[in-house]
């Protein structure tokens, strides 16, 4: 395989030649879509269903128009029909890379999977990453270059920008501004640096709505320089989380989640577990998994952190003299931390104040975390900046008319800027502004030039992971809707009128290698194109002859592309110690006692900062705690709700110093009193699918308090709003669905832990002699991130249905995550329970199907034969686990995605047919056939289900139960293993490992 991308391009030409493809593109042109958008989605669905039905009526008898086959003109090497090939690249979130592999079927990318070789993925992939494939194919992406007032072309844009360049060169770049998001791309960094030298007066601004300014500022105070952290949760026996996004959103969270979970499985670690404390204002994943959790208002959080600092000797000891109901709790936690010096870790979330970040840093230092559980490294980010400051300076200059040329690359400040930074207004005063974006978003519509961007999977580029490891991104598909990479736009400024991202990236890395791959390891110097220093292993120093160098580079290049990782680019650790006397320097806390509502701004799980708002999978993904789809809401605690006399669905008017909006209320157990969490990223003003969905929390967000704002108004309006949630009831209602034990119960009383199986049946049991597929799900490991749900959706062609259908109870997810509360609604225990099909051996669903549409096979799979199903729906009624889904309309036909983006190995279900989790039978069969062809037995771990593969914590294990050495058999052997509703004697193949808590005896909060 010479150039991995080459053969794909060729085959796409063939693809593009076929009239079908032309038709597809034709059909997907937004113009036609708009007509349909006039209807609400339900009507839209019914219409589609209707047209399908009518079409179906005419389709009887012998093929009216026979199918055609189009063989290649020249066969591309290595493409085997019906077999998937994988190409490595990276998907970025806030600029940080997560390594991925894209599965190609007949050279079409159909699924995103984690790259096992990549430190930030380890083979797992989060929901957003999984869903990125849908954005790639999204027919609503920006497709045309629009110049001032009229439709233009890329060439037109290049010409215009080039002319601009001439003038700018004259005045040394005066008035030229660059606005980007966080950038970790070394090549892009180098390009910008080069521009900076070409245009000395140019200024580069950064705006990432979910910036990490507070962390940066704290580091500046502590170390006088920006740093980044890499945590080692494997070494952490005690973790103290302060509103932490450590295993949900922080760069590298996939890796952290895996380390975290590995320490939470006592049955695999000889009865040892880490202990987790969490104090937070709004529920987080790590808080849900914590052994001790306290919901508290931000002011209390600050006080508690001070207490902790004082208690562990990181701050003045008088900080420990606070009046707080939680004082003893904190004291014990602090004691536990100090007792585990060197094995303790404290982490604060992105949204916490500078002070808290500073204190956390000091506490970690005091606990000897540095070097053990925390590693300080060079930040992978290119020139870390305070984004808020950077943006406000830019806007200031724009208003002052100092900016005449503005390049907005892949960020959308017109929508996401703080309410008191009038970017949109200022943008009108910029004579020449360019917005390079995937969709025609708010900024693009205001800019004089809107240029469609390439999707990451269409472009050449590179990016760094949380630990500095670089990945070279290779295109998976030729741009579907035109579009260009940021590097290409910048190249135009550099005078290159025929920019090509491949050459740009290649040249950069060639220079790196040429420069003796010096600085791998040292991102900063990578960003600048100067090098020097010790030579890396596989590099060939400039002393070698050029030819050898070229060969060496080819080798390096292909290795980097193949593995999806550039070897030895991880940033080296820094050994720094925080300045002394910082804690003492802190001002005393303001006494924020009076009860007004604190507004907490948080990224949305799916839409993130709003950039994924056009992705139906993410819109319909039920949020972890609220199970809310297609909307955001103001999340408030039950107590607060009572106080304000509102309930879920009531609309409240919220205002801050910066702006006002209306929002539906959602009562969320475990939320801190007198706080309301608002998800960012909703309420877009531009966009087809997302426009007007949810409310825009950015309007309430000010530059001074980006994460936490005091509400000046929070009143019931009397209006109500219909929220579509997917979970019917929040508690187990007496069923034996969630099993929980304490660690010492597990260690000292295994008999009690073991479930008594009452396995009696009138009929003789069925024998499964050779293979018996089974799944084991570890509830200790499951952190509720829902990567599996989207993975399943992507793998199995599961359609989206729209808000109304969700509200009707017709959501289609095959794999859902149930979230159960126990304990008081103010501070409940949370348990997550992934629910795939149980593949019961005595399946109740099969017995009631009158047409043999669902039956067992000889390996114990509960099969669903769509083409035999007549749709009596009795199976669903009879399924105690309610894992069956029904196509009430022709959902698949109504889903907006080009036909070539579906997974060809899985039937796309039509109207009136039942469907459900199949244990990814298509994957099983492919491997089975391979093995049979080679005349060997299947190896354990050869078949991997989509959910298992995507799971960051390895909570899901699948395999042959009859093979006692298989991973799944070992998992099922633990005393914690149990099945749901076993008194129904359905004999599920899917079993669960009970939750084990490791409470601090001194705090003695009964957990089990």
């Amino acid at each position, binding site marked *: 395989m010479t150039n991995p991308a080459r053969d794909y391009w060729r085959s796409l030409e063939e693809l593009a030649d076929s009239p079908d493809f032309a038709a597809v593109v034709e059909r997907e042109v937004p113009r036609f879509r708009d007509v349909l958008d006039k209807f609400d989605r339900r009507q839209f*669905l*019914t219409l589609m*269903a*209707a047209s399908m*039905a*009518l079409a179906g009526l005419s389709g009887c008898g012998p093929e009216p128009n026979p199918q055609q086959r189009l063989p290649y003109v020249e066969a591309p090497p290595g493409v085997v029909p019906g077999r998937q090939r994988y190409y490595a690249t990276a998907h970025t979130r806030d600029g940080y890379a997560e390594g991925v592999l894209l599965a190609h079927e007949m050279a079409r990318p159909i699924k995103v999977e984690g790259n096992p070789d990549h430190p930030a993925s380890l083979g797992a992939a989060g929901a957003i990453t999984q869903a990125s494939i849908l954005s790639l194919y999204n027919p609503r992406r920006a497709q045309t270059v629009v110049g001032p007032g009229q439709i233009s072309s890329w060439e037109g844009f290049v010409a215009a920008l080039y002319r601009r360049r001439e003038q700018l060169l004259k005045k040394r770049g005066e008035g030229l501004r660059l606005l980007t998001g966080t950038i970790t791309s070394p090549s892009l960094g180098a390009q910008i640096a080069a521009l900076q030298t070409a245009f000395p007066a140019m200024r580069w601004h950064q705006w990432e709505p979910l910036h990490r300014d507070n962390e940066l500022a704290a580091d500046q105070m502590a170390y006088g320089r920006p740093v980044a952290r890499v945590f080692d949760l494997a070494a952490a026996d005690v973790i103290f989380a302060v509103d932490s996004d450590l295993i949900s959103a922080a760069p590298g969270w996939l890796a952290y989640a895996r380390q975290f979970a590995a320490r939470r499985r006592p049955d695999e670690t000889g009865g040892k577990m880490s202990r987790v404390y969490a104090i937070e204002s709004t529920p987080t994943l790590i808080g849900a998994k914590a052994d001790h959790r306290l919901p508290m208002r931000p002011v209390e959080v600050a006080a508690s952190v001070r207490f902790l600092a004082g208690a562990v000797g990181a701050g003045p000891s008088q900080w420990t003299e606070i009046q707080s109901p939680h004082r003893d709790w904190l004291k014990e936690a602090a004691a536990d931390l100090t007792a585990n010096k060197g094995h303790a870790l404290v982490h604060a979330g992105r949204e916490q104040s500078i002070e808290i970040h500073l204190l956390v840093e000091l506490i970690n230092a005091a606990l000897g975390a540095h070097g053990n559980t925390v590693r300080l490294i060079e930040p992978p980010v290119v020139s870390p900046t305070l984004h808020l400051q950077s943006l406000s300076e830019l806007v200031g200059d724009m208003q002052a008319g100092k900016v005449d040329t503005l390049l907005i690359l892949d960020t959308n400040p017109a929508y996401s800027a703080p309410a008191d930074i009038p970017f949109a207004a200022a943008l009108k005063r910029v004579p020449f502004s360019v917005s390079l974006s995937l969709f025609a978003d708010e900024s693009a519509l205001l800019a004089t030039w809107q240029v469609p961007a390439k999707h990451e999977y269409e472009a050449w580029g590179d990016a760094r992971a949380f630990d500095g490891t670089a990945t070279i991104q290779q295109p998976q598909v030729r741009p579907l809707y035109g579009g260009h990479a940021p590097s290409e736009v910048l190249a135009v400024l550099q005078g290159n009128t025929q920019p090509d991202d491949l050459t740009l990236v290649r040249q950069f890395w060639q220079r790196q290698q040429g420069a003796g791959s010096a600085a791998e390891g040292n991102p900063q110097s990578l960003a600048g194109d100067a090098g020097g220093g010790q030579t890396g292993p596989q590099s060939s120093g400039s002393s070698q002859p050029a030819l050898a160098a070229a060969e060496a580079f080819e080798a390096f290049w292909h290795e980097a592309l193949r593995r999806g990782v550039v070897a030895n680019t991880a940033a080296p650790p820094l050994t720094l110690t925080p300045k002394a006397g910082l804690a003492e320097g802190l001002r005393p806390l303001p006494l924020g006692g009076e009860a007004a509502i604190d507004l907490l701004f948080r990224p949305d799980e799916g839409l993130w900062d709003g950039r994924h708002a056009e992705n139906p999978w993410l819109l319909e993904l039920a949020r972890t705690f609220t199970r809310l789809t297609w909307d955001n809401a103001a999340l408030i605690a039950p107590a607060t709700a009572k106080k304000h006399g509102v309930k879920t669905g009531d609309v409240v008017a919220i205002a801050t110093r910066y702006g006002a909006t209306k929002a539906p209320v959602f009562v969320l157990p475990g939320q801190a009193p007198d706080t309301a969490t608002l998800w960012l990223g909703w309420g877009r003003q531009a966009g087809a699918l997302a426009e007007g969905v949810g409310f825009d929390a950015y309007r309430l967000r000010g530059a001074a308090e980006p994460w936490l704002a005091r509400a000046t108004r929070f009143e019931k309006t009397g209006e109500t709003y219909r929220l579509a949630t997917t*979970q*019917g*009831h*929040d*508690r*187990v*209602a*007496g*069923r034996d*669905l969630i099993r929980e034990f304490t660690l010492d119960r597990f260690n000292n009383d295994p008999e009690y832990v073991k479930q008594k199986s009452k396995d009696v049946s009138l009929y003789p049991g069925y024998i499964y002699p050779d293979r018996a597929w089974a799944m084991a799900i570890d509830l200790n490991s499951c952190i509720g991130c829902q990567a599996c749900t989207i993975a399943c959706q992507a793998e199995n062609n599961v359609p989206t249905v729209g808000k109304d259908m969700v509200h*009707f*109870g*017709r959501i289609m997810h095959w794999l*859902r995550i*149930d*979230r*159960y509360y126990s304990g008081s609604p103010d501070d409940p225990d949370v348990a997550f*329970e992934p*629910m795939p099909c149980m593949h019961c051996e005595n399946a*109740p669903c*099969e*017995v*009631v*199907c*009158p*047409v*043999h549409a669902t*039956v067992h096979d000889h390996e114990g799979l509960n099969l669903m034969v769509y083409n*035999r*199903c*007549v*749709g*009596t*729906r*009795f199976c*669903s*009624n*009879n399924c*105690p*686990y*309610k894992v*069956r*889904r*029904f*196509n*009430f*309309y*022709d959902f698949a036909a109504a889903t907006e995605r080009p036909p070539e983006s579906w997974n060809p190995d899985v039937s796309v279900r039509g*109207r*009136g*047919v*039942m469907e459900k989790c199949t244990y990814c039978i298509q994957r099983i069969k492919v491997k089975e056939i391979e093995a049979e062809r080679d005349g060997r037995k299947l190896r354990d771990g050869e078949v991997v289900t989509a959910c298992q593969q995507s799971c960051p914590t390895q909570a899901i294990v699948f395999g042959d139960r009859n093979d006692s050495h298989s991973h799944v058999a070992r998992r099922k052997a633990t005393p914690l293993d149990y099945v749901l*509703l076993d008194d*129904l004697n359905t004999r599920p193949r899917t079993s669960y490992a009970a939750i084990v808590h490791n409470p601090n005896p001194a705090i003695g909060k009964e957990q089990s």
Partner: protein
Amino acid sequence: MSLPGELPADEPIVAPAVTMSSLSFEVSSRVLRPGAPRWWWIGFGFSFALFILLVIQLAWLFIFGIGVWGVNIPVAWGFAISEYVWWIALASGGTIISALFHITRQPWRAATNRIAETMLLSAIPCAGLMPIMHLGRQGLFYWLFPYSSVMGVWPQVRSPLWWDFICLFCYILMSIMYYYTGLLSDLATVRDLARSRFKQIFYGVLALGWRGSSREWRNHKIVYAIMSAIMAPMVISVHSVVGLDFAGGLTTGWHDTQFPPYFFFGAVISGTAVIVMLTIIVRWGYRLQDVITQYHLNAMAKVVLVGSLLLAYAYLWEAFGSIYSSDIAEYTEYMHRMFGFTAAGFWAEKALVVIIPQLLWLPAVRRNQTMLFLISGGIIVGMWIERYVFTTASLEHNYMPSYWGLFYPTFWDWAALAGTIGLFLTMFFVLIRLVPIVSMAEVRDIIEKKKRGEA
């Protein structure tokens, strides 16, 4: 059935004035008269309008799919199935009156069984239509027939749905044969009275040349007796199997061994109730007060009363089982049914089906046609609510709390209900126009017996 055979002194089973010839002329004339009476046209027009609604509903359903109804997951069965049960129950009532009371030799059965059976034939299509409509892919319902064609696949005969399908299939065919067997001699009467050539041929062909020879009568007696003896257990089995559709699954609130009899009781009361209503209408419309007397209504009222008592017993038992049982799922489901989303329906149903019918203990009420009519109507509505409540409520609060949901019917759900009622009434009106509505042969027998002071 322990119905007192005695005739109330003031309520003869047949008015003395009625002779064999007057009976024959009266009853046949209703069929043979050239134009239909106004009340018939009004009734028929109304029914036909509803029937048109059914046609529209079907078109809408087939074009857009089952999604136009309110069904969802978890409540995958909504109106269609509960109404299917409801219709079957009404239909069964016909067989119960005609078969069960034939083998138990109830004299009053003679004048009413034709109405009962006519009602049965009109109700069965409605029942049969429901499960087909509710399929996801209605066009493929024939896959339930035990034939494999080129697929090589058969139905799954362990499924209660299949039992039910077979049951309904047999029941329809058998009912038609049973109906026709009973009808033969009366068709002959009409044939012999018909004057217009067309009607002569029409009824002549239908009567198959029945002459009433002693040989025919004797064969007829044997076969009709055995048929009745079969139809009786048949109707019981039909409704038991419908019960098994629910009891056969393990869904909370359905998985209940008492369902088969429970459903049969429901059939007794609702079937008889609808017959009472139709009898009152026909009796009034066709002015057959002499043939269908207070006695009949009185007797049927008693059957209704018995039915409501049986049902009351079943209700108590159901409540006891659910509340007393240690099964938390059963318990929560029943609590939801009683006090939750469906509470209103639950209590309304109990009132209409069990409490109000207790008025029938009073002879005065039994003889007051208006009261009788209203109570019967109430029962039928109540039974509909009952089916609806236990079908949906049980699914709403199933084993998986995370997947509890509610059922909201849509316009098209109601359209299906109204439409099938239209179909039912349309068929009924057409049939009472075409066939003699009283089994004359049997009434003659009674008249003769009365002459001789027997019976």
